[in-house]
Each structure stands twice: as structure tokens, then as C-alpha cells.
């Protein structure tokens, strides 16, 4: 792990540059998944959900573009009205698990499309007060050559 990096929240992602994993939870009673991890199960209502590392790869279930600077607070990104560039957001379906909301990065001129294969990546979001990189998760298209 890089000493100059810190996750945007504890227990959210593993800071593994090559194979970052998102941390969710699974209910031992009914099998339901959540992201992020939580204790109470939203499906069967019992306590005791267990943390679980989620799949790194999935498919885009839906997407949109964010074309205005989100109001701050709560947004804490480094952009100003002058430097803001639109970005993509979507829900990624992790097979057999759940669908999670994420930024979608690494798209060129072509917007994302539903069904597109993507993988979890670590991205630098901003710097913290101590100059460290605040890291978060995103999903990026899987390169053609790396595809199954």
C-alpha cells in the first residue's frame, strides 16, 4: 500500500493498485448483498451482515452523464465552475451479487453503453489536508485484449 494514499472512507475499498476490491456485506441468513457494508439486512431485517469483497468485474446496467458541478457541500471534488468537466455515472451489475453506483471512467469519445463489460479501478479523487491522495473506486471498460 502506498503511504501517500488514503481511501475516501474506511472499509470501502482495498487500496490494491492492481486489483482493488470493493467491500460490501452479505447476510448469512438470507444471502442478500449490500454496498457499502452495513450491519442490518435490508431484506430480512436481521443484524449480523458480514463484510465481503465484491467481484472486480461486471456490466453496465444503466448510466448517465453528470454535466453540472454538484453543489458543495456535500461534494468535495477539487473542480471549480471553470475547471469542471462532465463525467459519467452508472450502476454496475456484479454477477450473482448486486448492482452498485459508481463513476465510470476511461471512456473516450463514445459514451458508455448498457451491457458493456467494466472492471473496478482505483482513482485519485482529491488531496487531503496532509497532501495525501484521497482514493476512491470507479469502473473502467475492460480492454479488448483482456476480455474473456
Amino acid at each position: 500500500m502506498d503511504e501517500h494514499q488514503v481511501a475516501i472512507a474506511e472499509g470501502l475499498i482495498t487500496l490494491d493498485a492492481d486489483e482493488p476490491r470493493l467491500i460490501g456485506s452479505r447476510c448469512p441468513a438470507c444471502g442478500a448483498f449490500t454496498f457499502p457494508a452495513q450491519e442490518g439486512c435490508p431484506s430480512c431485517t436481521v443484524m449480523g451482515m458480514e463484510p465481503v469483497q465484491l467481484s472486480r468485474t461486471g456490466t453496465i446496467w444503466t448510466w448517465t452523464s453528470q454535466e453540472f458541478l454538484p453543489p458543495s457541500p456535500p461534494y468535495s471534488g477539487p473542480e471549480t465552475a471553470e475547471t469542471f468537466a462532465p463525467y459519467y455515472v452508472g450502476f454496475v451489475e456484479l454477477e450473482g451479487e448486486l448492482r452498485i453506483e459508481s463513476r465510470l471512467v476511461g471512456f473516450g469519445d463514445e459514451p458508455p453503453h448498457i451491457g458493456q463489460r467494466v472492471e473496478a479501478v482505483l482513482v485519485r479523487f482529491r488531496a487531503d489536508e496532509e497532501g495525501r491522495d484521497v482514493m476512491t473506486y470507479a469502473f473502467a471498460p475492460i480492454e479488448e485484449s483482456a476480455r474473456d
Partner: protein
Amino acid sequence: MTDVAIIGVGLHPFGRFPGKSAIAMGAEATRAALGDAGVQWGDVQFAFGGSYEVDNPDAVVNQLGLTGIPFTDVYNGCATAASAISLAVQTIELGAYDIGVAVGMDKHPVGAFSADPVQYSLPSWYGELGFFLTPKFFAMKIQRYMYDHGISHQTLAAVAAKAYRNGARNPNAFRRSPLSIEQIAESRMVNDPLTQFMFCSPDEGAAAIVLCRAGIAHRYTSTPIYLRSSVVRTRRFGAFEVHTPSFPLERGDAPTTDASKAAYERAGVGPEDVDVIQLQDTDAGAEVIHLAENGFCQDGEQERLIAEGATEIDGPLPVNTDGGLLANGEPIGASGLRQVYELVQQLRGTAGDRQVPGSPKVGYAQLYGAPGTAGVTIVSR
């Protein structure tokens, strides 16, 4: 159970009113509703008041009169007004009182709603990363719906064009200038596929209704409108909702669908009986989806129905005859009471330029919003 009737309705226009407080608008709307019913504030035995921005909507009593009645304030997201109505109905149904008021008022700053995600039971990083925004949720919901059910961009623009056209016929609407399908489709992209004119704006306004035990309604009016059901529901596991970092693979019914089914059952009517419809059109896509979620068509039929003009004032499924949220904006506490105000005008036959032909008998109003709350109200002559 006791039946409930609406005997008076009042509205403060929706829009922007610099220097005027939400409370003042709420008091005006209440006075208008009392005048419409022919009753005095002193005759009112209880009230419910809804608002997002105003902590104490009951402060309208400073302007209406300090009569000591129980006056309860409610806030329930975009379903705030439906909550005020359903609580007022239940109060009469329980036999506690005979005559009461439901009033809603708001005065929002310009721009998308913003709040602390932690207050919505969400982690703070969700807000820090820019996920805590409602417009992009609505965009993602309709994006998937268009993919699954073959809805076109043209249909989204047509829904908004209809809203502004109806708003132009409504003297109380915020946006009263018709816009062409091209102007709407080519306006600034906000969240793909939704453009600027496909979204409603938070704004200002107030609306109120006077309700009474149905047995005494004829003392006040020759045209009571009966409140057949008013139901509020929250999301169940599996619904795809505003402000959710994740949701399960197995998709369940939306809270609107749950509220709708319960409201039809309680009212003893079905979607085929409804003559005039008010739907939550936070964005043009929401109106499309809500047509199906409320039972007015099958998923995907909207593409043909909207092209045929079915949802126009003179169509078989008139939707948002007063311009809906798109033309009126959304002062949260008042929005659902505006819907009922319009339904009452339509059922009384007093909707003027926007009157649905054929003497409509049954009206339907639906609200939906963060964090997954829906309200449905059914009224009839």
C-alpha cells in the same frame, strides 16, 4: 368507516415571489380554500401542514387566527402533501373531528435540492463523491427504462412539450410559455438523456384543501368531491430508488406501484375508471414510467400512446392537465395539494381552457420522491 369529502380548495400561484414568505402564501391558500368552502377559520377543528423549508407551517395561525386547534406539521419528502392529506382523511375517518384543513407551502432556493447525505442514512462519502443528487438518478432510471421498453428521446421531449402547452392554459403555473419538441430536445444536456427543459425546478407556492365528514358536505357545497383513498408507501427491498449506493439484482415493485394498488383497492376503482390523471413528473421520463407504475398502461406502450396524443387534455388518458411539475415547479409541501386542486377543478367542470371533456368523474394523483416514498390520492364526484 366515515366517508370524507373535499368542500373547498385554494391555491397560491406557483413560481418566484421575492419578498413573500412561504407562510404568507400558505395563509393565502388556506383563506382561498375556506372561501371556496364557505366556512370560517373558526369552523375548522384540526389541520395538517406540510413543508420542507418551513419548520413550523402551523405558524399560518398567526395570520388566520389563534383558535387553539390541533395543528400538526408533516414533512415526508416529495410525498409531503400526500401525507398531510392522508392524515387529515384518517382523522375524519376515525371520527375524531368533522372538518379540517390540509395545507402545504414552500419557498425553495434556486437549483437542485441539496442536503447532508448522513441525514438520509447514507455514508458521507456518497455526498463527497457527487452521488447525492436526484437529477442523475432520474436520468439513470429512464435510461434503463428506454433500453428495456423501447422509449425514444422524441417521446421524452413530447412529454415536456405537452406540460408547457398545458401550463400556458393555467394562470397559476410557473412556466407559461409553450416550447417546441426541438427546443426541449436541443436545450442544455443536464444528465443524459434528460435536457434542461425535461426537468422541473424547485420553486415557491402553496395550496390547501378543506375536508369534512361526507355526511355534512352538502351544508357547504352542491358539488362535494369525495376523497376515496389516500395512501403513502415507502420502498421495499428490490426497488430502484433515489439516493441508493446499491440495489439487489432481483428487482421489486416501486413504492408508487405499492401505493397505487392499495389506493385502487381502498377506493374500489381501477385505472380504467380514472378520467383525469396527475403524475409526479419531476422529469419527462418520470411521467413515462409513472404511467405504467400506476396501471394506466403496460411498460413500453407509452411510446405509441404519447405519439397518438393519448395523454393530452382531450385524449383518453389526460395527464397533468395543469402542466404538472414541469410547468408548475415543485414547492415540495404544496405540490400534491396542487394536484388535488386541479382534480377538483376538473371534476367540478371549472377548469376553463384546460377542462377535460366529457364530465370527468374520477381523478387520480401520484407523488414520488426521495428517498423512495410515494403517495396516491383518488377522488371522485
